[in-house]
C-alpha cells in the first residue's frame, strides 16, 4: 500500500545552456528528468511516477524565456515563459487573445507564477489546458534533441516528441485580420480547477456570415484527437447557423476520444464537450 509520500531524494542539476542540458541527459541516461515549473512534476515525484535520482532544472537555461513578436509577425513564446506572464502580456492579449485567456483561466495565481507553457505541453496530459489553444492557433513548436532540432505543428507533437527531447519555443503565426476566437472549459469549479473538457476555436468569417476557415482544439481528449478536423470540415465554406454549429459540435464530440475518470463517465464528458464546442464557436462568432 503506497500512499502519497515525501519527495524522494534527488540531485538538482542546473545547466546554463541547451547544450549542457543534452550533455547531462547523455551522461545520466535514464536516471535524469527534466524540470520546468515543477507544478506537476513535484506531485508525480511524490507519487513515485517518473521519479529519478537526477533532476535537470531548466530555470537557468538561457534562450528559453523569449516572449516577442518578430518582423514576420510571428509570436515566439519560449518554453520556460511563465503562464502568468503570457496571460498578462499586452502583445499576446492583442494578437493571440485566445492564448492569454487560456493561461488566465489555468490553475491559480501561485500555479501560473510557477508553471511554464513548455511544462504544461511537455507533460502531454489530455488535460493540459494550453494544448487546445496552441492547436487552434496553428502553433509550431521547436523540439531540440541531442542531434539537432526540428519544428513541427503542436498538433503533431504527440508523435514527434521523444523522451529526452526538449521543447524550446512555440511559434504562433500572425492571424488574418478580423479573425475571431472562442474558448470554453468545463471544470467542477469555475476557477482553480483542471478542465475536464474544453474547446478552443479560431474562426475566420467572410462577410460575417460564411466560415472561411476554422480550427478547433479540444481539451480533455486523447492527444491524437485534439484537433477536431471533422468538425472543421463541416463548418468550412458554410453559412454559420445555430444548426451547423450544433452539427460541428456533435462531430467534434464524436471525434474526441476520452475515457471515464474518477469523477465523470466518458459518456457525460462527451456530452459536455459538445456543449463546450458549441459555445466556443458561438463565442467566436460574436467575438
Amino acid at each position: 500500500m503506497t500512499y502519497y509520500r515525501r519527495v524522494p531524494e534527488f540531485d538538482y542539476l542546473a545547466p546554463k545552456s541547451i547544450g549542457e542540458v543534452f550533455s547531462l541527459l547523455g551522461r545520466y541516461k535514464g536516471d535524469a528528468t527534466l524540470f520546468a515549473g515543477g507544478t506537476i512534476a513535484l506531485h508525480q515525484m511524490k507519487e513515485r511516477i517518473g521519479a529519478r535520482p537526477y533532476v535537470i532544472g531548466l530555470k537557468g537555461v538561457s534562450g528559453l524565456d523569449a516572449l516577442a513578436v518578430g518582423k514576420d509577425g510571428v509570436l515566439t513564446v519560449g518554453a520556460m515563459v511563465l503562464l502568468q506572464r503570457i496571460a498578462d502580456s499586452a502583445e499576446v492579449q492583442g494578437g493571440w487573445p485566445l492564448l492569454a485567456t487560456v493561461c488566465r483561466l489555468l490553475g491559480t495565481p501561485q500555479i501560473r507564477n510557477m508553471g511554464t507553457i513548455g511544462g504544461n505541453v511537455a507533460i502531454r496530459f489530455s488535460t493540459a489546458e494550453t494544448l487546445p489553444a496552441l492547436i487552434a492557433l496553428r502553433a509550431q513548436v521547436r523540439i531540440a534533441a541531442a542531434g539537432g532540432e526540428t519544428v513541427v505543428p503542436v498538433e503533431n507533437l504527440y508523435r514527434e516528441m521523444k523522451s529526452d527531447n526538449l521543447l524550446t519555443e512555440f511559434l504562433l503565426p500572425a492571424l488574418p485580420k478580423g479573425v475571431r476566437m472562442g474558448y470554453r472549459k468545463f471544470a467542477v469549479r469555475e476557477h482553480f480547477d483542471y478542465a475536464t473538457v474544453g474547446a478552443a476555436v479560431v474562426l475566420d468569417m467572410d462577410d460575417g456570415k460564411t466560415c472561411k476557415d476554422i480550427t478547433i482544439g479540444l481539451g480533455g481528449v486523447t492527444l491524437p484527437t485534439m484537433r477536431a478536423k471533422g468538425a472543421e470540415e463541416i463548418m468550412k465554406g458554410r453559412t454559420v447557423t445555430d444548426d451547423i454549429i450544433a452539427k460541428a459540435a456533435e462531430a467534434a464530440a464524436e471525434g474526441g476520444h476520452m475515457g471515464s475518470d474518477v469523477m465523470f463517465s466518458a459518456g457525460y464528458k462527451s456530452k459536455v464537450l459538445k456543449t463546450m464546442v458549441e459555445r466556443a464557436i458561438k463565442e467566436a462568432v460574436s467575438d
Partner: protein
Amino acid sequence: MSGESLIGKDIPRIDSTDKALGRAKYTTDMVLPGMLYAKVVRSPYPHAKILSIDTSAAERLPGVKAVVTGIKDTPRGAVFGIIPHTTDHVLLPYEKVRYVGEEVAAVAAISEDIAEEAVDLIKVEYEQLPYVLHAEDAVKEGAPLVHDHRKGNLAARYLVDEGNIEEALKNSDYVWEKTFTCDVASHGLPEPFTVIASYEPSGKFNLWLQTQCPFQTRQGLGNTLKVAPSDIRIHSLAMGGAHGGRSDTPPGAFIACLLSRKAGRPVQVKMTREEVEDCMRDKAAKVWNIKVGFKKDGTITGRDIRIFLECGAYASSAIVELWVPLLIDEVLWRAPNYRYLADLIYTNKTISSMMRTRAHVGPMSMDVCFDQVSEVLGIDPIELRLKNAVLPNEVVPSKSVVTSTGLSESIVMAADKSGLREKKGNMGPNRGIGIGSGNMQSMFYMGFRSGSTSFIKFNDDGSCTVFTGNCDLGQGNQTMFLQIASEEIGIEMKDIKLCYGDTELCYQDPGNYSMSATVVSANAVKKAAQDAKRHLLEIAGDILDVSADEVEMRGKEFFVKRRIGKGRGVKIGEVCRTAFKRGKPIFGFGDYRARIDYSDFGIDIKEPYNEKTYGQKVTAYSFGTTTVELEVDPGTGRIKVERIVAVNDCGTVLNPLLVKGNMQGHINFMLGQGLMERNVWDPKTGRKLTSTFRTYKVPTANETPDIDIHFLGIPDPDGPYGAKEGSLGFGCGLHGAISNAIHDATGVWVYDVPITPDKMLQLLEENRKK
C-alpha cells in the same frame, strides 16, 4: 470600561491576524527536541486476517528507534468506542483489518525518509477475506460479515415510536412517500492530522494533537492504552479545520503513544493528504425513506422515517450517526404520531463519524415534501410549513421540550427578504428559487461530560487568566470566552489571557462535540467571571472601608458608588496584591450543567432499542431558514448558486461579525456537499479513489455566492445572555432549498445529494424525454 456592553458588538477574532499572517502555530509546526518521525504500515486490503508481521529488517535499519505492531504492542481487550455497545475498534489491530488503509504496524525513526524506508521493510502476511462496500449489499443474505458477531452487518439500531404511526397514516387524507439518498462525504480538513506524543519515565504521556474534545480523547486513549486518563495530558493549539472530524480518539495518537513509550523519545505521526482522507473519518452515506400523512387542511398526522446508514468498518463513534439525525428530524415539524427507525450497517470502508452536516437529508426531505404536497392540497407552501412548524415550549416525540424557537419567524423573514413569492416561477429559463429550514442542538446528552467547569485566576498586576477545557476549532471560541469574561469582570479583553483545552490545567469540558461551546462552556466562563468579580468587589470594599455592594468599578479602578467623581479609588492591581497578602488571591469558579433530564440516552443501546429513549436530550435548539437562488446550466448540468438569504435563530447574537463568518463558512461547506463533493471506491480493490483534492473537489472562496444574513435575536432561556448554537442549524435546510430551487428552475425534482453536474444533466435529459 465605560460600562458599555460588549454583547452584540462586532469583535474581531483575537487570533485572526496571526492566522492571516501565517504566524499562528499549528500542531504541524511543532518540533520537540529529540523528536522522532513515525510512519504507518497500512492495509492494502479492505478485509483480511493478519497472519504474521515480520519487522526484523525494519528494526535493523540504522536510524529506526522503535517499531510497533498490533500483535506485539496493542494491550488486549483495550477497544475504543464511545459507548459500551460500540467498543469494536482496536486502534492498532492484531487479528483483522477491515478497510483499506487501516493501521497494521508503525515505525519511529530519526527522519521521515528513514521511517518511510523502514515501512517498506515490514512484511505483513494477510489472508484476504471477501468484503462489502455498500450498505445495500451488506444487509443481503450471505454478505461477508465485517464483524463476525454482528449478524446482517447490523452495527446498531435505534427506534423512537410515539403514537400509532400505522393507524395515523391509514386515516390520513393524503400520504406522501419518498426515498432520499446521500453519498459519503469527507471533512476535507486543510491541516493534515498530526500528533506528537512524548512519554516521560514517570509514566506520563504529553500529547499535542488537533482534537475538538480534549477530555474525550484523553479518556479514549486511557482506555485503549490501559493507563489512567490522568496519566495523559492533552495540549491544544491552533487548528486547521475540524467540522466534527477531530472528535474521535485517533489511531495515530494511540500509535504515537506506543512508539514514544518504546523509544523513550517524543514521536510525531503526521498523515499525508491521502492518509487523512482514507484513514480518518467520513460522513455516512444514507438512505432516508419517509412517509408523511396529511389532513386536507395541511396538518401533519404522522411521520414515518426508516433509514439506513453506512457505518464503515467500526461503529466506535459512528454510532452518533444513528441518533443525531433524530435530534434534528423530530424537532422541526410537529408530528403527533412519529416513528424513527434507523439501522447502522457495517461496510469495509473508512469509518463514519461526526460531521457538521450529517443530517441534511432529513430536513431536505421535508422541504421537498412541503413544496410537493402544497400543490396536491392546494395550500400555499409557506402556509403549509407554518401550520406544522414547532412552537416554543412544545414537546417533541421523544419528549424533549423546545424552550426557544424562531422557526416560523425565520420562514416568514427568509421568504420576505428573498422575495420568494414574487420570484418563484418568474426567474426566467433555468433559474429558480427555493426555501429550506433546519435546526441543530446546543448540547446533547453526554453523561457527566454534559457540563463544563471554568475558573479564573487574577495576577498581581490586575490582569487575569481564564481556564477552560474547551478549545477553538477556528469558530472563535477563544474570542467568545474573553468577550464574556470582559463583559462580566469589566476589564478589557486585552488584559485577559486564556488557557484552553489543556487537560492538566483545566477542568472537564464536553469540548466542541455537541455544539456545546456557547451554551455550556461559555456559561461556565460567565459564572467564573461573576464569581471573580464578587471577590474583587469584596476586597476593594475592604480597602475602601465599605461593603462590596457599595463599590463600583470604573476602568481599572474601584470607587465607592456614592463618592464617584469625588474621592480617590483603588486600582485593580492593588486589590489583587492585597488579596495575595491576605492569602486569598482573587479567584473565580464557575460550573454549568446542561439542562438535560435523560440518564440513559445512547449509553446502553441494544438491537432493537426502544426503551428509555424518552426525556430531555438537548438543552437548546437553534433554527433557521435559507433561500437559494440558482441557475442550472442545461448544457452541462452544473448548478451555480447566485444568492442566499439566511435567517438565523441563534438566540442573542453575542458577536455578529463572528457568527456571520461562521455562517458563510457553513454555507460553503453545505454547498460543497450539496453540489460537488463525492467519494468513490474502487469495487475491484476496495480502495477510495477520491483521496486527494484533485479528485475530491471542495468549493473555494470563488464559489461563495452573494449571502444576505439576518438574525431573529429571540433569546434562549438557558444560553449565556440568551445565546445558542449559531453556525449550523440555520443552514441545515440548504439542500432542501437547493432541491426546491432546481425544481423551480427546471421542473425536475432531486432526491439525491450531492447534485453533481452529471446527475443533474441526466435528470434534465430524462425530463425532456417525458
